[in-house]
């Protein structure tokens, strides 16, 4: 991706997200508080974040790949289940990924 396109992506995404925030303070509440709209908005983050976990952890380009990232995800899941602080979760996941790289690389 060219530098200009990358900047355009950053600026468009940033302004779009700001306008979504501003819309919430500006539009009549009834527009947003339709049951169907509320339902969609409640569950979109789970669907997208689930997809992003899978894509970031298990794919490379068009291929499914199993490597240190999956080990890191497993370690992170255990740490999250044990209610570890966020920074500990990330450090453990990173350490697991680095260890797999050292052992297999």
């Amino acid at each position, binding site marked *: 991706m060219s530098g200009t*396109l990358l900047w355009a992506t950053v600026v468009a*995404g940033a302004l779009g*997200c*700001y306008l*979504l925030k*501003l819309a919430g303070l500006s539009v009549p509440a009834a527009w947003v508080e339709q049951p169907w709209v509320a339902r969609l908005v409640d569950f979109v*983050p789970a*669907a997208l974040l689930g997809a992003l976990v899978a894509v970031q952890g298990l794919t490379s380009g068009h291929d499914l790949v199993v490597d240190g990232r999956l080990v890191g995800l497993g370690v992170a899941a255990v740490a999250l289940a044990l209610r570890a602080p966020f920074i500990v979760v990330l450090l453990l996941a990173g*350490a697991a990924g680095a260890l797999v790289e050292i052992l297999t690389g």
Partner: protein
Amino acid sequence: MPRSARSATLRDAVGLGVAVGLYGAAFGAAADAAGLNVWQAMTLSLVMFTGASQFALVGVLGAGGSALAAVGSALLLGTRNTVYGVRLVPLLKPQGLRRFGTAHWVIDETTALSLAAPDRGLARLAFLAGGASIYLLWNLTTVAGAVGAAALSGPALAALDAVVPAAFLALLWPRLRKGFPEAAVQRRVALGGAVVALALTPIVPAGVQVIAAVVAVALAGRPRAREEAA
């Protein structure tokens, strides 16, 4: 308002700012891993200022996705801030030009702080103090993360590769935990999103599978009756 309630509100707001600030370092590192420079990472934290959307934008770019797919997934995740704004209007009553400033800080954390405050005055204080501490720390740690990650090599790069999916899991986790409204349904939708994305990965352009995963929202089913929605 009583002084003790004020100081408790301030303490919560600043504490949350410090905790969330740590995500900023992870975001800066993820942005660097995705090929953004420090200025681009800073622009996202300064202007977009909504964590999940920022992570999604750089995550999709990092996976080789198009500009459209990256912006699309950031905007889809940003829609929840619209709903937060609607909930905050009666508490904050932003007038005139102040609306433009208030809008910038409407995120998960400031909404939670404001809605939890015992009265309107404390809700405003919680919004401002939480927003200020989160904004400051989020931006400082973004720079630290982006600059730090740019210096990594070898196994440290593999560590960063493993940190990015773990960061998405950490963003998702609170929604799946017991106590979150309809946690079981959230889990079903998240798993559905993951399956849809993996199934589409070999066949669609990179990044599109993330947006397509919104079809998993259908697994949530119909809206509940009105009295349960609150």
